[in-house]
């Protein structure tokens, strides 16, 4: 069998040796002699005498330490100081409060809501945010339309790429313009409906011509008075949402 290594000897010396190493040491004289030498060498390493401390050494340390210590605060308010039933009571109280708040909130909601709210959701509270969304969408549409008309009025009609770009934009605007016009009619907003109607004509002319030429665009510009429509769009854009007699965007347009 393999003789004991130095590490195994160290383990044996400190009583951590394996059973196998112990057995080997009993049968192998060579290892036993080596281990005896090893043991003697470690036994010789002794601590130098630790200076004796008197019985009052602890007191001496304590007196030196005492002024440096800050007393711990009594844990009257911390969680640790609470007994389990106090914690349970506090938890139950919190739960009861939360339940009461939840039920109260639900009841309040039901009381403050009118019959229409439950049926159709068309009360003033719901209408306001919806109206804002619609106005933003409509304003965006009018903005895009305004840009298109400006472009049309100042475009170099001989430039084919510019014409194609106008046509693409007109096609996109045409579909949404129809929806806005129908909605404006339903809402009884003739100013907006009329402007959108005239605008639709211009957009349709540009969008639906498969061979749009510079001459066609010139004709649209003149015949359909795009400058006048542009003016109308700008007027619509400047109107305030709750202005009386206007397109009544405050009411919004259902889309």
């Amino acid at each position: 069998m393999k003789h004991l290594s130095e590490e195994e000897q160290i383990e044996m010396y400190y009583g951590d040796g394996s059973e196998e190493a112990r057995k080997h040491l009993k049968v192998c004289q060579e290892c036993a002699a080596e281990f005896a030498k090893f043991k003697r060498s470690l036994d010789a390493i002794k601590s130098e005498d630790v200076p004796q401390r008197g019985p009052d050494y602890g007191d001496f340390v304590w007196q030196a330490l005492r002024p440096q210590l800050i007393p711990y605060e009594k844990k009257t308010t911390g969680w640790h100081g609470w007994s389990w039933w106090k914690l349970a009571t506090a938890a139950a109280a919190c739960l009861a409060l939360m339940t009461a708040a939840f039920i109260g909130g639900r009841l309040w909601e039901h009381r403050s809501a009118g019959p229409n709210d439950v049926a159709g959701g068309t009360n003033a509270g719901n209408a306001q945010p919806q109206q804002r969304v619609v106005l933003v969408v409509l304003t965006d549409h009018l903005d895009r339309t305004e840009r298109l008309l400006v472009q049309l009025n100042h475009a170099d009609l001989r430039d084919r790429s510019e014409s194609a770009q106008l046509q693409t934009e007109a096609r996109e605007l045409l579909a949404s313009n129809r929806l806005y016009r129908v909605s404006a009619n339903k809402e009884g907003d003739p100013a907006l409906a009329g402007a959108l109607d005239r605008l639709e004509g211009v957009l349709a002319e540009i969008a639906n011509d498969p061979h749009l030429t510079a001459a066609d665009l010139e004709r649209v510009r003149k015949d359909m008075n795009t400058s006048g429509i542009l003016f109308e769009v700008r007027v619509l854009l400047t109107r305030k949402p709750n202005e009386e007699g206007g397109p009544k965007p405050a009411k919004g347009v259902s889309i």
Partner: protein
Amino acid sequence: MQGNDHSIVRAVLAGDKEAYGALVRAHSAAAFRVAFRITGNEADAEEIVQEAFLRAYQRLEKFEQRSAFGTWVYRIAVNCALSRMGRPEIEAEYRHGEETDAETKTVQLAAQDADPERVLLGREASAAQEMAMQRLTATEKCAFVLRHLEERSMGEIAEALGVAPNAAKQAVFRAVQKLRRELAPLRGNA
């Protein structure tokens, strides 16, 4: 004792600072012994004892009641000693101090022993051991002191040094190997 220590700890945490005195009185001797064995310097050991108890007081809320306070503060003392030995300026000072102490000690031995040849051998052995111990790293020396002189288990050593048990074991192995190598010529002479 352990149960008593735990009730003292609870009292201290409840605001009774004076109760901590009982813990200091009970465990300062053991803390001094290990601090001295690691540093080899009396003044350093005394400082370490105070530092260990101060740190223990400051961390008392983190003390886990399932372990013994004595073991806990002992570990803190070992850590304080280790970090002190790791500081170069302290290490240099400590080595210088050790040389002086070794000298003093051999003088004391000489006074007790009448045989001049034995005195000489004892002095030589003691000096060689001091030198060999000084050549160990701080961790090796700490691990060796805890295993060989304090007779602590590998698990306790690992915990005290904040290393894995295998690393503690390797530190003890390295220390023993180095010491035996250093002291081999002396054994030959003897």
